[in-house]
């Protein structure tokens, strides 16, 4: 048995006939080999089960050392690397301070507690009015009311100051994210080698948890709002880059021919032809960047973003659910307003209306004129009537105590029931599964993943699915990685068990689907932290709580992809099925579900990705997986530890993603859909 799984697999897989034919036999054989290895190899070869500590590569230490060198010694000659990064944050600080002063703090003289306000910030009436005007311009009266309502909510519930700080950082981060993403996207579109360099980085950035690069950002850019803006940029730029590349690719070739035929230079081609022609999709990217920036709000507050994120985090730390929930609601209100406004902006700006012919500055720009007027009047009035400037405290509502009481009431009355549910789940499902995974030999798992990679996607995929688990084992993360897999796997499975049936049920019923769609759209606008709070309130800290939060977050893609997959099935096939006399049940199982299988698989893939990204956040409630490792590294400011754990999470995500995608396209080929 000293032969490891890998050589065994080689002899098994080498004379492989076309994959689709002998597929089940090969899988069963590989599975059997794996089980035998797992059951009987332990006494003979313990190293295959527990990675020997002496051979752990101290990658974390090396990274930390490299980081230290970068900070202390690296230099470009005239100035050191640290000088450079501090310069970047100083530059970014200018627009941020401007936005924050305007919206929240006012313009100050001096610093710290001795600072004196020279000019007050914009009155809250003015901000609400501006948002409503913007809403009216972009999407008419209903959008104006929605956006205004959301902002009024912030004022009424006493979240105004924090919310404006958050808004300021988004107003700085989002445009920069869009610009950088667009520039990277253009570069990748124009030069093939740039794309080759960028593509793997994009993949990695999409899967590596944000926490992992908070520490290096903290070291390089210092603690404070600008560092938070940079972290947000790192988080939000890759998706924009991806969208930009796709959008530019999707421009019809005739348009490119046109550009060449009229004699565009490269620069004209990019800015006069390609970017405008891709405008519609680029606008979707803008919305994405804004939403991702909002999603970062809480995480970024760990390195000094302040604002609502900080409020939530602080409340969570002192277990003050009421306050946390209120700040959480405020983030949601902000998210909804920003989402709808940016969607309307995308629509408005990509579908130009006929030119306005009326003359006169005010008549041509009524919204701009009204905005200027509003600001002038409210600022002046604000000095006389304080209520216009700052929402009066007497009129503020707080539901914080109410929520705390509700939670207390639930816990008093239903404590036993909740506890019973939690314990049953823990004892019968969670813990056995965790033990099972912990018991598996790392070498066997790696070999089996390699086999799966080979069967589904050939040697290249096999190489990937072997190397990434090896990386985890070699850096000494295997045990924690298995806990991550366990939590993520169980949560994704439950999310799929809930989501897929809902998707199936709602897919064929238009009215239910439109309702469900609104629900999952809203769920996806919410920052992931929000999911954590109710779970913590009811089940306190621990794996079960983490699981509930992850399931709540990851159920949306399962529903969406299932429903879309089923709805996409060619109606002529359904008709054909009916004509052959299929019952509805037969149509569902024999036609719809079968043909929707690849989509459902992709939905599962997304569910797993969502679960993994949420998992790191649930580290706050005391799980013991890689997420916790990253989180601890953050609190200890240990760059290497955080990055290695983060890369391991990315490795798990990439392996799962590649295997499932390969499986999906395999299925599609088998179904003749490709």
């Amino acid at each position, binding site marked *: 048995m000293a032969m490891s799984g890998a050589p065994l697999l080689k002899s098994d897989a080498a004379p492989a006939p076309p994959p689709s034919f002998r597929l089940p036999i090969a899988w069963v054989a590989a599975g059997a080999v794996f089980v035998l290895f797992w059951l009987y190899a332990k006494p003979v070869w313990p190293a295959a089960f527990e990675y020997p500590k002496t051979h752990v590569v101290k990658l974390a230490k090396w990274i930390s050392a490299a980081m230290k060198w970068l900070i202390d010694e690296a230099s470009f000659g005239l100035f050191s690397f640290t000088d450079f990064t501090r310069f970047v944050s100083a530059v970014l600080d200018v627009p941020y301070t401007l936005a924050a002063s305007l919206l929240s703090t006012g313009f100050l003289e001096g610093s710290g507690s001795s600072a004196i306000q020279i000019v007050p910030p914009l009155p809250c009436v003015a901000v609400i009015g501006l948002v409503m005007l913007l809403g009216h311009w972009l999407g008419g009266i209903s959008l104006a009311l929605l956006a205004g309502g959301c902002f009024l909510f912030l004022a009424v519930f006493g979240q105004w100051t924090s919310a404006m700080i958050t808004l300021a950082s988004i107003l700085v981060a989002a445009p920069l994210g869009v610009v950088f993403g667009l520039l990277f996207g253009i570069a990748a579109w124009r030069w093939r080698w740039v794309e080759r360099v960028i593509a793997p980085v994009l993949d990695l950035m999409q899967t590596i948890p944000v926490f992992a690069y908070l520490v290096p950002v903290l070291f390089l850019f210092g603690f404070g709002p600008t560092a938070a803006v940079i972290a947000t940029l790192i988080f939000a730029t890759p998706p924009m880059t991806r969208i930009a590349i796709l959008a530019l690719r999707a421009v*019809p070739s*005739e348009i490119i*021919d046109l550009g060449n*035929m*009229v*004699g565009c230079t490269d620069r004209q081609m990019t800015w006069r032809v390609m970017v405008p022609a891709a405008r519609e999709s680029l606008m979707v990217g803008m919305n994405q960047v804004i939403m991702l920036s909002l999603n970062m709000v809480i995480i970024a507050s760990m390195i000094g973003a302040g604002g609502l994120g900080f409020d939530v985090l602080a409340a969570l730390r002192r277990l003050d659910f009421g306050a946390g929930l209120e700040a959480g609601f405020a983030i949601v209100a902000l998210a909804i307003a920003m989402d709808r406004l940016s969607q309307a902006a995308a629509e408005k700006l990509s579908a130009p209306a*006929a030119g306005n012919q009326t003359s006169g500055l005010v008549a041509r720009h009524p919204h701009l004129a009204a905005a200027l007027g509003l600001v002038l009047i409210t600022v002046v009035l604000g000095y006389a009537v304080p209520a216009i400037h700052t929402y009066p405290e007497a009129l503020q509502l707080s539901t914080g105590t109410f929520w705390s009481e509700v939670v207390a009431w639930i816990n008093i009355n239903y404590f036993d029931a909740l506890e019973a549910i939690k314990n049953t789940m823990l004892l019968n499902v969670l813990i056995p599964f965790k033990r099972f995974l912990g018991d598996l030999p790392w070498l066997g798992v790696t070999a089996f993943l390699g086999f799966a990679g080979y069967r589904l996607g050939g040697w290249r995929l096999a190489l990937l699915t072997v190397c990434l688990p090896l990386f985890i084992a070699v850096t000494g993360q295997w045990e924690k990685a298995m806990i991550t897999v366990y939590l993520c796997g169980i949560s994704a499975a439950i999310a799929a068990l809930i989501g897929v049936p809902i998707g199936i049920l709602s897919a064929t019923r238009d009215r239910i689907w439109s309702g469900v769609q609104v629900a999952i759209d809203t769920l996806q606008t919410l920052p992931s932290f929000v999911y954590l709070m109710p779970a913590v309130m009811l089940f306190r800290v621990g794996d079960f709580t983490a699981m509930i939060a992850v399931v709540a977050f990851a159920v949306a893609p399962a529903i969406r992809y299932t429903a879309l997959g089923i709805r996409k099935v060619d109606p002529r096939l359904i008709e054909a099925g009916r004509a052959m006399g299929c019952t509805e049940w037969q149509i569902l199982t024999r036609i719809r579900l079968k043909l929707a299988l690849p989509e459902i698989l992709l939905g599962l893939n997304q569910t797993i990705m969502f679960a993994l990204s949420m998992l790191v956040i649930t580290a706050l409630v005391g799980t013991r997986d890689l997420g916790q490792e990253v989180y601890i590294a953050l609190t200890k400011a240990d760059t290497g530890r955080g990055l290695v754990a983060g890369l391991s999470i990315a490795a798990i995500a990439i392996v799962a993603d590649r295997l499932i995608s390969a499986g999906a396209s395999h299925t599609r080929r088998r179904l003749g859909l490709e």
Partner: protein
Amino acid sequence: MTTPEARLVCRNVWKLFGADAAAFLAQHNGRPEAAAIARAGLVGAVRRVDLDVHEGEIFVIMGLSGSGKSTLVRLMSRLIEPSGGDVLFKGENLLKLSQSRMIEIRRHQMGMVFQHFALLPHLTVLDNVAFPLDIQGMNRPAREARAREMIDLVGLNGKESAFPRQLSGGQQQRVGIARSLAVEPEIWFLDEPFSALDPLIRREMQDEFMRLQTKLHKTIVFITHDFDEAIRLADRIAIMKDGEIVQAGTPEEIVLTPATSYVAEFTKNVARAKVIRTRSLMVPADSGSVEGPVVSARSTIADAAPLFLDGVAHLGVTDDAGELIGRLDRETVVALMLQG
């Protein structure tokens, strides 16, 4: 008759898709056989094309989908880089030109109309038509004046500030035509310009196109998959199949003497009378020897036939200068018309 000047000349032009196509072509002395191409794993999109486009003529390249016609027109303007051969435009070999000289030529001497219009969605009709001028750096008043002229020419007045998506397909293609003419090109490429339109609109646009051409006398390369469109519009036609030109000639030559059975498939349902011109059926005659009504030597038999309704036995045939050059007999015409 003087030979008209060749504006655009293709000499042994090739486009092979696949790795190292140019090297492969050089190895085979620039003329590989089809079997050799297939063996090397290459795809021969355009093969050994030789053709001349004359000053002021409508040269139609006709072929079914996949015949390489769209590739060929892009090789002529170097939108696609040929694997081998020469493309001479007014005697200058386009393939040897620098990037900047090529941009210069495209800006001032070439115009192109696209199958799916290729209008920029974010610009108004006026800005779309003015776009090529804007790219050249022409100032706003000048380019807008020119664009308005072009919009006027294609009959879209009043639509200047509309956006493409607010127009019908036919109107969008009129914008495309106006835009391609805005730079006063010396050669005008039209890549299946009417294929995406409804049959009725297509007919209308063909008439419009002929009206424009009688006014402008451009040198035109016109791509189509529609044989009827080809014989309707062409001065000369080249028929493509599998990347090669199987026959080139006037519509008349092609209909009367199809070179291969493939070409004959297209021509067999074409009414002869609509293609054959009076010049081909006339009996030469001296000036003054024929009395009665006259027709132009350029008219088709179908156009001339109604004149026989009055019971005349023959018509006089005149050349472009109005000089009598021949006699067209009633029996010849009837015989042809009865053949269908």
